[in-house]
Structures are given as C-alpha cells and as structure tokens.
C-alpha cells in the first residue's frame, strides 16, 4: 500500500480524532432528522440547507463583532421560528401525503433556501474565526483545533438536554405519543398540529446549533447543504428511528469513514465517497431485507 496514511501512524490518530469529533456533529443533525421522520413521517431534503442557514446566522453575529460561539444559543432560537414558519407554510400540507411528495416539496424548499442564501450572504466560502487555538498532542504530531472539541462538547450537551426534555416535559411526551400513534394521540386530546409544528421547529433548532458549530469548525457555502442531508439520512437508516446511542455511534462511524476516505482517495472524491456510501448502504439493506421475505420469491 502506497498511501501516506499507512506510512505515518500519527496521521491515523489524527484522522480518527477528527472523524470522531466531526461525527458527533453529524449525529446531532441526524437526531433532528430521525425526530421529524419518526413523528411526522417526512424526509426533509432541506435539512442540510437549514444547517447552513443556521451557520450563516452565527456568521452574521460574528460579523457584528460578537463571538461566534454565542451562535449556538442565538441561532437555534431564530431557526426554531424559521422551522415553525416553514411548517405552517408548506410542510403541514404534505404531512399525510405520499413520502415522495414530501421529498420533492422539501427539494423545492432547499433550492429556494440555497438561492436566497446566495443572494444575502454571497457565494464565497466563509468561516467564523473562534480564535480558540489548537491543542497539540503526541509531540506536536497531532493537531486538534479547540473549536472542534468545543463543538463536540456542545453537541453532546444539547443532545442530552433534548433527551431529558423529551422524557420529562409535557410537549416531549406529546411528541412521543404522536410518534407512536398519531390518531390515538389526537383522540386523547393531543393537539397533533401543534406537536408537528413544534417537532419541525425543534428539528430546525437542532440544525441551527449544528450550523453554528460548523461555522466555527468547518466552512460555509450556500450550496453545500445537500451532503449534510445525505449524511443525516444515512445515519438514520443505519441506526434506525428513535435509537439515540446508535445514532451517535453511526455518526462517529461516518465521520471516521470520511476522514479516512479523504486521506486514501483524495479530497476531490470526499463528497463522492459519501454519496456512494449511501448507495452501498441502501443496497446492502435491500439484500438483507430481501432475505427476510423469501416467501414471496
């Protein structure tokens, strides 16, 4: 093997740490996707664009002279209302319909979002400087930006907070009841319309947090939303709906895969590898499932 990564073991440590920290961030986005998929049965192609929008909100704060880390508090608040508005405007009309309708409708929303962000924030690649410095490990052979550690920490914090909220609060219980059986929940007096709107809002808020973290750890560009959608979709189908530890693990797995693919295949194939992995996972799943339905052969 003539790859640099196999010659230098320290690069492997570097890629692994990067991948795991990145994967935690992906898992946060995937958690939002699992939430709306489980509760409302829609697949949101605009998920990644909500993330990028959240990132641009944090970037705007940074341009105003406030430290971008405040974005993880301000961005989800704004994004919650964006999500709520989006639900009232479009999503409530596609909730009970065929899944393909929701895919196409959110695809349309994604295009609108991309273009509006392009108008407002410009087509340049931007990044908000957190100036957190870097941590050096193993005699300076592994560099770890503190912003990545910060982002992983914040992601875990928010994920735990959300799990507790879902378990304890009234709205959280209503959301879980609706996910189990929307009709029964409605009969028992749950305002499902409100639950749906809140779910979509919470999902958008999660995207906002993830976006704010991406604005300080990675880069922002109006058209890079779709890979985030695909990553979160992939994590959800591997982990299954409503299985939070599995979401975290498969998120980290995806992060690792990406970092290693980056070193082995080259950066130009990184996004291609992500999409190809999606296809491979789906095909694997198809063959695994087809074994279960042998009676129909």
């Amino acid at each position: 093997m003539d790859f640099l990564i196999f010659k230098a073991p320290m690069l492997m440590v570097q890629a692994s740490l990067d991948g795991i920290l990145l994967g935690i961030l992906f898992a946060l986005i995937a958690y939002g996707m699992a939430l709306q998929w489980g509760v409302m049965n829609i697949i949101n192609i605009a998920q990644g664009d909500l993330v990028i929008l959240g990132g641009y909100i944090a970037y705007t704060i940074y341009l105003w002279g406030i430290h971008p880390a405040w974005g993880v508090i301000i961005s989800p608040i704004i994004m919650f209302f964006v999500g709520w508005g989006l639900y009232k405007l479009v999503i409530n009309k596609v909730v009970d319909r065929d899944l393909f309708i929701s895919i196409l409708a959110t695809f349309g929303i994604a295009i609108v979002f991309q273009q509006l962000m392009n108008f407002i924030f410009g087509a340049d690649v931007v990044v908000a400087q957190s100036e957190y410095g870097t941590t050096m490990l193993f005699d300076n052979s592994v560099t770890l930006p503190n912003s990545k550690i910060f982002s992983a920490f914040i992601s875990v914090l928010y994920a735990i907070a959300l799990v507790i909220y879902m378990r304890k609060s009234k709205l959280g219980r209503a959301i879980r009841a609706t996910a189990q059986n929307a009709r029964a929940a409605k009969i028992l007096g749950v305002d499902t319309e409100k639950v749906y709107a809140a779910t979509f809002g919470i999902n958008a808020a999660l995207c906002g947090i993830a976006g704010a973290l991406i604005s300080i750890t990675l880069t922002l560009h109006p058209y890079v939303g779709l890979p985030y959608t695909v990553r979160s979709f992939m994590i959800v189908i591997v982990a299954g709906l409503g299985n939070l530890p599995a979401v975290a693990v498969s998120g980290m797995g995806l992060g690792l895969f990406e970092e290693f693919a980056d070193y082995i295949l080259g950066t130009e194939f990184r996004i291609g590898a992500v999409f190809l992995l999606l296809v491979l996972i789906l095909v694997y799943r198809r063959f695994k499932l087809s074994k279960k339905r042998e009676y129909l052969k």
Partner: protein
Amino acid sequence: MKQKDLILYSGLIILGLAAPYLFSAFKVQLTYLCVLIVLAMTWNLQGGEMGYNTFGNILFYGLGMYLTASVQVGMFFPLAEWTESGGEKTFVHTTAQYFQGIGVGLLVSAIVPAVIAGAIGYAILGLRGHYFAICTLGLGIAAGEIAGGIEIIGAGQGFTTPPFPAEIVDTEARGKFFYFLSFALLVGTFIFVKYIYGSRFRLILNAIRDNEDKAEAMGIQTMKYKIVGWMCSAFFCGLAGGIMGGLIGYIDSTDVAFDGREMGVFMVLMAILGGKGTLWGPVIGATLFHFFKEGLWTLILGWQYVALGVLIVVIVVYFPEGLMGWLREKYPERFGEVIDEKDRKAQVELK
C-alpha cells in the same frame, strides 16, 4: 377516431419538420425542447407508470454525454491529450470523421447506459418508495462528483466536445443537424412509448405501481420487468445526453452532465406538471415548462432558481395530479371513462 389520430400525428410531424425553417432563430431552443420532452417521457415510464420515483435518470443522461464525446474524440485522437489541451485545438476532425464519430458515439451512449441500468438494476430496484428516490439521488450526485475527479475526461476543468466541422460553409447547418437529430430521437421515443402504452408491458408496470407484492403473488416476475423498464429509459436518456453534449459543446461534470440541480429536477417536474402516467402529459408538461422557462427566465434574471423552487413546491403540493389529471377530473368522458349518472346521483345522496 383512427383518421383523427392520423391527421394529428402527421400534422405534428410536418410541424416538427418545418419548425427550424419557420422559427429559424430558435433552433437551439427547439432542440432543447425535443430533448426535454424525451427526458420527461422516459422519466414518466419510471415515475408515472412503474411508481418508482427516480432522481437517477440524470446518471444515464450524463453518461451518454461523456460517452458520445469520448468516443468521438477517442476514435481518431488520443483522448488524454485532447482534454489536457482544453480549448486550444491541436487536433481537428474532418467532416467525415466528425459524423462517423458522433454516429458511433451515439450508438455507444445508448447501449452502455442501458447495460449499466441492467447491471445495477437488480440491486437498486429492489429498494422501495422513498429509499429508491434517495438512493437514485445519491447515485446521480456521486456520479457527478466522481466524474469531476477523473483526469482523462477533463476532471473539474471540463471537456470540450469536437467543434462542428468548419468545412461546411452553411452557417445554419449545425443548428439544423442537431435539431433533426433530436427530433428523430423524439419521434423514435414517442413511437416506442406509444407502443408500450398499448402493450401488456404497461399493464404489468401499472400493477407494480399499484401493489407490487400482489403483482408478485399473481405470478409476475416483477424484478425482470422493472429492470427492462429502467433499461428502456436509460437507452433514450443516454441518446438525449449525447445529443445535448454535442449541442452545448462543453461538458462540465456537475453543471452540464450530471446536472441534478437542473435537468434532474426538470424531468421530474415536467412529468408531474403534465400529469404522471399519461402518454401526452409529459409532452404537454415539457412544452409548457420550456415556454415558461424561456419566457420568464430572462425577466427574473438572478431569481430563476427561487422561482424554480417555488414552482416545484406549488406544483407538488397543489397539483400532484398534473394538467392531464385535472382535465380528466373535469371531462372524464374525453378519457373514455363512462359515468353512470344514476350511480353518481346515488352516491351523492349517500354523502
């Protein structure tokens, strides 16, 4: 009825043949229209008839584009040097070489995508519903990203297709050549799709759409028919891509060939706008869409993608049945549906 059909079709063919002379300035637009109709009709075979909503037909379109150009160059000159030199041409095709190249190239670009569709069909078409939709979306984008990293077909720099031979003095010749090529493709596709509409094959596809498990239980080998259906689409999509590559003259991996953001969405949108699962729906949808696009794109310059996104949302949310579906609801007699007045009244009373 038969005579009416004959008049309609011969009228359309005459109109199609006369169009480049009547609207001489719009030859490129007319070529686009033909290709768009072909793409919408072939998408309709999947999305409308078979119920497999694909975003992945763009894969075959892009493949066809790259294959035609590669064969056309590779038959006579070294391909790597051609793409490396970019716009500056050290090699020039003679007239005979150009037409031979494009002929063989189109043949390859029809067969190879169909073979690829057959090869990956067994794995991909086993997916159902939204998993299939997302998987094909991933396929199209992955193809674009990967093609953008391959050096021999130009990588991110793009691939300039051979220019139309300069020895032909007639300045109109290039436009006419591509128009008639795409028109021939359109006629061929239409005849083929019309043939499918009258055959047992269509009934099987519809059975798969309505209830795949039941169709399987009735003894239909659904997988076989799904793959054949997809191969038919791939065949025509590849040809359409090959023609488009020659017309545009420049292939970029994500903006021209595997252009999921434009072409990939257009074909879905056109078929839904006209009405899924009808013969004429995609034709009407594509024509309307093209007129709308060409008419309004220039007026709302810069905002066209916003308009496109809004259009998708509006069409999908409010008119999922499309134009033909709307007409069918309004004038059911025209579509050969007999309404029993007594029965209808009885139902109204029941409500």
